[in-house]
């Protein structure tokens, strides 16, 4: 199957919300699994060459996912996702923060509130993620970091290419 599905991002005029939409060529059950099961999440969540490493994963309302993004040099950055509501194979809401390895939040990093909706679309699935922030400052910072992320990742991909 091709992977030419486009990732769309729409910025809300309020300046506090982004909506990310993406279609996948797989049924809802599989896409849901990939988003909510530890072993599967670890296989795609970290953009290369980083790896996602789970310390705790309890996918249910009130549970959380505590994981580290691990650099090729072994550097670890911790993230925690608190799950608020779970409606199996339909939607879940969560809040994501940066933290230390014990899940203690880091100061000065904005929290992101997530609402992920999984919709059957023919034989495929459309995932709509509404990502909102407590303030426009939080929004700016996330977009800012996304930019840094994209930049660094491009560098990483270039390294990989040059090593071939």
């Amino acid at each position, binding site marked *: *199957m091709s*992977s030419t*599905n*486009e*990732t*769309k*991002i729409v*910025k809300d*005029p309020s*300046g506090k919300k982004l909506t*990310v939409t*993406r279609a*996948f*060529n*797989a049924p809802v059950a*599989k*896409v849901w*699994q*990939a988003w909510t099961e530890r072993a*599967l999440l670890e*296989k*795609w*969540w*970290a*953009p*290369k060459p*980083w790896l996602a490493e789970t310390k705790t994963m309890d996918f249910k309302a009130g549970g959380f996912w505590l994981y580290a*993004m691990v*650099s090729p040099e072994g*550097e670890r*950055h911790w*993230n925690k*996702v608190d799950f608020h509501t779970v409606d199996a194979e339909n939607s879940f809401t*969560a809040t*994501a923060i*940066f933290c230390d390895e014990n899940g203690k939040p*880091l100061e000065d*990093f904005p929290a*992101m509130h*997530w609402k*992920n909706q999984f919709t059957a679309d023919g034989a495929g699935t459309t995932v709509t*993620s509404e*990502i909102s922030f407590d303030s*426009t*400052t939080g929004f*700016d910072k*996330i*977009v*800012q*970091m*996304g*930019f*840094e*992320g*994209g*930049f*660094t*990742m*491009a560098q990483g991909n270039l390294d990989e290419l040059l090593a071939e």
Partner: protein
Amino acid sequence: MQLYDCGFIFATIQLQIMTLVTRRDIFQAIADPTRRAILALLAVQMMTPNAIAEKFDSSRQAVSKHISILTECGLVGQQQAGREIYYHLNVSEMKTLDAWLEPFRQLWADRFDQLDDLLNNL
């Protein structure tokens, strides 16, 4: 769920400071609802400061202050026509603003490509 991870930030802290300095002003400019409304008006046509002020309940001075913030960060330009000053949207700066989201979109697109691979083998 994260959009990115903080490793990226620490790795590129220098670049972040640079971009913060150059971009911060634009984001602050559009954070205000009145200023976004002014941009929306100017997207349709060039307008004099009086014509813009008439669209709002706030005082002329307040609207004028908003216009000057938009002018300072380059989102709005001005030109003289006879005795009147007309304000217009600086389209290239608005594009810069949109371009800002593009690498962010790319980060997600790459991540989702990995998910495609996984789903194909599930």
